[in-house]
């Protein structure tokens, strides 16, 4: 069974239809890249999968392991194993990162009927992951993302991904605002999480990120639809020729 199936999805925001019948099938172990120009609906897709309010699904389905994802609250989706790495992670003053991580992890485990992590186990796990992502300990004591640089915010997203061990990771424009070194650290973090059980959907405007996170499939989105799918070479082709051809095609 596919992990994630998006079937003929139509989504509107107020009076504008953003997605006009999008279909995407993601199997365990696969890495899919979704590329496309600004305004093609890439971020809308990621938001609708995660359950962000403000979007109206007028037609189609999203199935996660065969279950109707659209019937679930965002927190239920998270507990089931859907993870969205935000393009712009929010700052939450007054909520210490460590406290947030523990609350979120235990909320997910509780929802799945699993026991909560003991404090030593939790701390050990966070420290290990933080170290591998070059996240200093004092960052974990600060408010969530408060005063973090762009790179630190993205690394904090990957830290959460590593902790929560989701089945599907949606990475929304992970490369935006990152310099080449920050991008490499973030990409290494993502690659370390690739596994036969886990799938990733990497949303990006630029081919550059795909040099680091090499996809199995590349989909080109334009005007709310997937207009072309192919292997990793499609990304290189796009880099050479640009998106214009697809805008005409759509």
């Amino acid at each position, binding site marked *: 069974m596919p992990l994630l199936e998006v079937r003929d999805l139509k989504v509107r925001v107020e009076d504008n239809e953003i997605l006009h019948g999008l279909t995407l099938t993601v199997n365990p172990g696969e890495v899919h890249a979704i590329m496309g120009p600004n305004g093609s609906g890439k971020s809308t897709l990621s938001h609708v999968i995660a359950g962000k309010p403000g979007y109206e699904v007028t037609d189609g389905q999203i199935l996660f392991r065969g279950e109707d994802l659209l019937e679930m609250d965002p*927190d239920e989706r998270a507990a089931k194993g859907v993870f969205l790495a935000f393009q712009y992670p*929010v700052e939450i003053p007054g909520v210490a990162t460590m406290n947030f991580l523990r609350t*979120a992890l235990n909320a997910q485990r509780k929802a799945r009927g699993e026991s909560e992590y003991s404090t030593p186990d939790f701390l050990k796990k966070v420290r290990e992951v933080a170290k591998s992502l070059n996240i200093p300990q004092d960052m974990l004591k600060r408010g969530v993302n408060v005063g973090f640089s762009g790179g630190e915010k993205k690394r904090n997203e990957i830290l959460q991904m590593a902790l929560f061990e989701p089945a599907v990771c949606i990475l929304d424009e992970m490369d935006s605002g990152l310099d080449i070194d920050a991008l490499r650290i973030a990409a290494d973090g993502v690659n370390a999480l690739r596994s036969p059980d886990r799938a990733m959907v990497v949303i990006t405007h630029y081919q550059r990120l795909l040099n680091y996170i090499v996809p199995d499939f590349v989909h080109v989105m334009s005007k709310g639809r997937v207009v072309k799918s192919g292997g990793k070479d499609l990304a290189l082709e796009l880099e050479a020729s640009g998106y214009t051809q697809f805008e005409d095609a759509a």
Partner: protein
Amino acid sequence: MNVVLAKNETGRALSDSFAVARDRLPGGGKVAEARNTAFEAYERVGLPHRRLEEWKYTDLRALMREVPPLAAAPDAAALKQAAAAVKLQAIKGARRLVLVDGVFAPKLSELEGLEKGVTVRTLRDVLETGDAALQTQLFTPDNANPMVALNSAMMTDGVVIEIANGVVLKQPLQVIHAASGATPAAIYTRSLLRLGKDTGATLVESYIAAEGAKAYQSHDSLVVAIGDNSRLDHVRLVEDGRDAFNISSAVITLGAHAHFNTFGMTSGAAVSRYQATITFAGEGSRVETNGVNLLNGRQHADTTLFMDHAVPHCASREVFRAVVDDRGHSVFQGRIIVRPDAQKTDAKMMTRALLLSDDAEADNKPELEIFADDVTCGHGATTGALDESLLFYLRARGLSEKEAQALLIQAFVGEAIESIVNDDLRELAIAAAQRWLEARA
């Protein structure tokens, strides 16, 4: 007009109540005279109403309607009821003073290990046998406030604590006001804390009710004098029963180079009003006042602060946070006066309200009256809802709607709670906030 107001039904019922209670109230001679004067002052206005500017948002005539008879002294059953509630609040190591239904309860109190140079007496004792100066000090709160006048007339018991020069207390003084709530009744307490020069103390006041308490009224008043070079840390937690009224006032005076750090949180009571007057009487002193209201249902909580910069070179900071759900109503009135001589005053006030429902209300009234020309004064206020983008981020990480809200509410009030220096007291405040959050979940 005054006569008319005094003749309303409420006024008459209370007059009878005062007449009946008079014989049970401690103190003769001058004390009894002062009580009569105070009661006359109360009767001239009666319960405050919205046409009085200071009570514009808290119309006690509409909210309270009447004042029930004076509570009976607690019997064994009432003490037992209260003991269970007291247990939850007790801080380990603190010197604990418990008032049950407005009467000092020695068996629930714990004064062992009290430092030398500290004297603790009950209000009853001081009014009956104390010296004239102390009795006069107990009557310093101004009868111009009718609820203070009523308290002066009816005060039954309380604690009177004096700290001698040079004494620094290592453990907090904890005063617990517990209502057994066996019958709807009115409780009148007054306490006095006098810190000499070069002293230090921590005072925590908790207002609580036994389980299943009825609609009692708690009327309390606190008089504090902080001597030169002294520091008082003060925490005040109102967790009265959900049908209760808490009408309290405080009068605080600081000497020179003194420091007063105070935190107040109201999460209980149906209707509450806390009116504090803080006066800088000596130069070089500092006050930090932090407050939190956590309200839901139809709770109404009013904090009215009057910061009187009477002398130069003093600083004051006021931080107030309100979280209001359902049809709750939070009121903050902050008045700062900088008198003509009070040059180099540094006074700031910041209030923020978080409204969790469409029917929630938060009123904020800052008043700055500045008569000196070389001062720094400022105030700011914001009101808003929880940030949707933060809520979604938390929910996308697995927190339920209530959990996400709770985490953001904790963060919102956290800044004020963090101002509490003593770890045990901060924990006590966090636990009280937690109880409110859990009750709404």
